């Protein structure tokens, strides 16, 4: 036990009972009938350890990252450290005033003004009234909402609400700060401003635990990191090592060379040998959201004569989270009919205004002929998409909402009120009959 540790976690575990007492709420009437039915027998419950035997230490002044797949226990750990839910086993000691930030704007009420919400939200985050009073001007200035501070928050744009909420949170000055993925919302410029403030925080000797699945922000912000896998500590140490290990874990069964890949489907009459990305004829590593990008599939075949009517396809998944396809591209569906294609060639798919938000993805590729699979390679290629301004609005989608982006427009119109204007369809009908 070193005296410099701000956080010491030992043998921490959290068990949930699935079955009779599932998480979430239930109905008392159901519970009573259930009890009556299983009278004399013990209700079957299944145990699930969301977190098990977790040990780690965070030194004072350190910025410590926690990463892992969805469901690896990150948020359970976060909730235990912030005292929202108790552990089942073990203990954690935190030395210093703790501030936890699982969400920005918790408790914001739309009916209250910005000023009222700042005080309420501050109190919720355990800032004293005097402290909020003292920093009030700073908070308003940081949020950049100017004269709207005495307007009810329900009249704010969502961006304004977010900036105000974040501004309160950014002025939280505990000795130990526990933050969830809250930095990833808001417009790009404001995000940077908040990141700068956070990094400033660690220089002031504040201990920060940063829980995230955004690997690049963990890499930028943290000194050390912990990788959780299925509720257990998988790796702990220097942030780059842990992240590389994590990416390695994801990639483990991916041979680099597509040509030598054994694990594939199809008759093998045609084989994919390479995938690359291009923009304006230049090979690129990563496409940018909102910009054109070519996905080029090189293939070979052991024959001389051309193929008739091949349907090429690409299916894109999110690298870490994904088992559900995000985007399916098929040449036939897109209306491209390849009558004679060379036995050795390249199929090029141009993605206009790349609709994938920033993040890591993998793609599966396939080629079929009259419904017969010629070659199909799952996880043939991985790519990182860099964030761009798809909508030209200066905003990026929230990383929790990782879906493809499509161009669209919004508008609001006043509904016509029949008692005032009379239904137009009816008027038209009358006009016709009178004519």
């Amino acid at each position, binding site marked *: 036990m070193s005296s410099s540790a701000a956080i010491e976690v030992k043998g921490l575990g959290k068990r*949930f009972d699935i079955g009779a007492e599932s*998480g*979430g*709420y*239930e*109905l*008392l*009437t159901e*519970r009573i009938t259930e009890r009556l039915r299983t009278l004399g027998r013990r209700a079957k419950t299944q145990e699930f350890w969301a977190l098990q035997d977790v040990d780690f230490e965070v030194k004072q002044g350190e910025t410590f990252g926690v990463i892992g797949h969805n469901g690896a226990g990150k948020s359970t750990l976060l*909730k*235990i*450290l*912030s*005292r*929202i*839910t*108790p*552990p*089942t*086993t*073990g*203990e*954690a*000691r*935190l*030395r*210093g*005033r*703790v501030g*936890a930030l*699982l*969400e920005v704007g*918790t*408790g914001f*009420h739309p*009916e*209250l003004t910005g000023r*009222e919400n700042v*005080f*309420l939200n501050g*109190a*919720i*985050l*355990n800032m*004293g*009234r005097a402290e909020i009073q003292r920093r009030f001007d700073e908070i308003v200035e940081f949020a950049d909402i100017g004269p709207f501070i005495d307007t009810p928050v329900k009249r704010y744009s969502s961006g304004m609400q977010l900036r105000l909420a974040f501004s309160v949170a950014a002025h939280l000055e505990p*000795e130990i700060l526990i933050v969830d993925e809250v930095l990833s919302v808001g417009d790009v410029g404001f995000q940077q401003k908040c990141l700068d403030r956070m990094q400033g925080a660690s220089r002031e000797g504040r201990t920060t635990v940063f829980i995230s699945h955004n690997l690049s922000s963990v890499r930028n912000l943290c000194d050390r990191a912990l990788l959780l896998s299925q509720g257990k500590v998988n790796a702990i140490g220097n942030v780059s090592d842990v992240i590389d290990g994590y990416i390695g874990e994801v990639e483990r069964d991916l041979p680099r060379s597509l040509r030598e890949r054994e694990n594939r489907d199809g008759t093998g009459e045609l084989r994919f040998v390479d995938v690359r990305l291009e923009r304006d004829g230049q090979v690129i590593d990563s496409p940018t959201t909102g910009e054109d990008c070519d996905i080029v599939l090189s293939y070979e075949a052991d024959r001389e004569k051309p193929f008739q009517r091949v349907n090429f396809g690409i299916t894109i998944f999110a690298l870490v989270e994904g088992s559900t396809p995000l985007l399916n591209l098929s040449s036939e569906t897109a209306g491209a009919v390849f009558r004679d294609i060379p036995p050795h060639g390249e199929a090029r798919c141009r993605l206009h205004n790349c609709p994938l938000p920033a993040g890591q993805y993998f793609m599966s590729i396939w080629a079929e002929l009259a419904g017969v699979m010629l070659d199909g390679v799952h996880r043939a290629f991985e790519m990182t998409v860099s964030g761009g301004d798809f909508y030209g609005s200066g905003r990026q989608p929230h990383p929790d909402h990782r879906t493809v982006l499509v161009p669209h427009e919004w508008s609001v119109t006043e509904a016509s009120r029949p008692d005032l204007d009379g239904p137009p369809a009816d008027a038209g009908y009358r006009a016709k009959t009178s004519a």
Partner: protein
Amino acid sequence: MNPPQAQALAMQETVIAPPRPWQALELRELWAHRELVYFLTKRELQVRYKQSIFGVSWAVMQPLAFAGIFAVIFGAILHYKPPGGLPYLVFAVASIVPWLFVSQAIQNGSSSLVQDANLIAKVYFPRLALPLSKGLSLLIDLAIALVLVILITLLYSVTIASTVWLVPAFLLLGVVTAFALATLFSAINVKYRDVQLVVPMLVQIMFFASPVLYSGTTVGDQAGRAWHYIYSLNPLASVLDGMRWALFNSPYPGTINIAISVASALVLLVGALIYFRRAENYFADHV
């Protein structure tokens, strides 16, 4: 921040461990979060008054409307004569004001945790702050409505008894009862959502079981005093009859009856707090 203060903060250590089955109430923790209670109470009031067109006057309108209706039905139509020759409107408003406080505190309080489920899921604070702040915000309404009671009493030129200083004691009994039930129901409600449907029904039953429209001091007059003791297990019996006694010198509910009511309210409070404390740890897992 001056050095001694910084040192005191550096000493602060939080130990997070599995909860023991019997835990202290940790009122100190609640006290440490008094500013949160203050702001939550303020939020209640602000939102309530901003959303109502009548604003603060709603606190007066509501009991006045009820008292008026009851005065017409019971006073003018059914000719119920309150003991001591009290005008029915005076009699009714003096019991409806505390009753409305109790019933609203129970109903609003019992949904307080579920309503702020997001706070429970995202932030640590003593959960008791939620039903507590609901109750506190209603106390402001109660204070405003009490002024109405005094005004109507003066309007009917009813003499206010010299025992009026005992009114807060009876009100306190009512506050304790309401807070106990609100706390208990709010905690059960987190886990069993259908309890929310039962609460209004229970409040209805309480309404008729409590001497709001009638005087409870005559209960058991024919069947025997034992019935009045049983009746007094409902703390509101002593709250309402006691308040009318203290205000207007109406018939005294009886010392033993008051003692029974006080004991009953305390048992409720202790039971509710024990249940709440045990359930509190797992609220975040259920919301």
